[in-house]
């Protein structure tokens, strides 16, 4: 049972991470590419970390929950990174598939 759970988590983690990177490579403008890594990858790593937690908690040396910390950290930081990247892209006026927002100087 444990092994199935682990396998699922590992596979899901790897898959989401892969999909995130795939989006990065595949999508056609920066803003859409931005979505892949910030979400899929975060969840992918999250799954992987939970898998690790489960794995090490069941090795007899007590609970291993410190992986949670990495997840927590990623969940706090990834959005900020994405936000800043988007902000930079807007500042640089990168080409966009979506109609670009009005350039209100107050919004720069």
């Amino acid at each position, binding site marked *: 049972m444990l092994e199935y759970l682990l396998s699922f988590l590992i596979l899901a983690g790897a898959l*989401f991470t892969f999909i995130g990177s795939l*989006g990065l490579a595949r*999508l056609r403008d920066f803003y859409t590419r931005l979505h892949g890594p910030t979400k899929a990858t975060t969840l992918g790593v999250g799954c992987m970390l939970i898998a690790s937690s489960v794995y090490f908690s069941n090795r007899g040396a007590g609970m291993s929950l*410190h992986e949670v910390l990495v997840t927590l950290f990623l969940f706090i930081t990834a959005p*900020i990174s994405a936000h800043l990247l988007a902000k930079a892209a807007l500042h640089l006026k990168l080409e966009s598939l979506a109609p*670009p927002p009005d350039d209100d100087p107050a*919004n720069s």
Partner: protein
Amino acid sequence: MKMLPHPLLTPILAAIWLLLNNSLAPGHIVLGLLLGWAIPLFTVHYWPEAVHIHKPLTLLRFMAVVLLDIVLANLVVARLILGRPQSLHPAFLKVPLELRSDLAIGLLANTICLTPGTVSARLSLDRRFLLVHALNAPDGGAVIATIKQRYEAPLKEVFEPC
């Protein structure tokens, strides 16, 4: 100087300390509490404002919603990425903000980033609008409404109940 500048922070840090050490040994509990007390003392000046959580339960519910949305969001995004890129309808959405505190706005922005197909791209300098990029938003208005109702409202309740 207050001896306990952030009463909430002390147990959180102590807990994180135990997480880091993967241990519940009494020594680590003592040390964790010690650090949980000392670090806020040193970093008190760095905190933007006193954080007051008015409705802890709402916060918890909000967190659960977000967690769920994260999972869903990933599925959605995964589908979109694996699908035909040409079929996407990306859009920039301007979300008017009612939140005022930095922390709350930040939390909202982060939440938007983590949840279905949206990335918060820019906060206007006057902090009244959040520009959001949506991966696939044929109906922009609906997305804005969801954001405001699903995320902004609970956050406002928790942090700015006035």
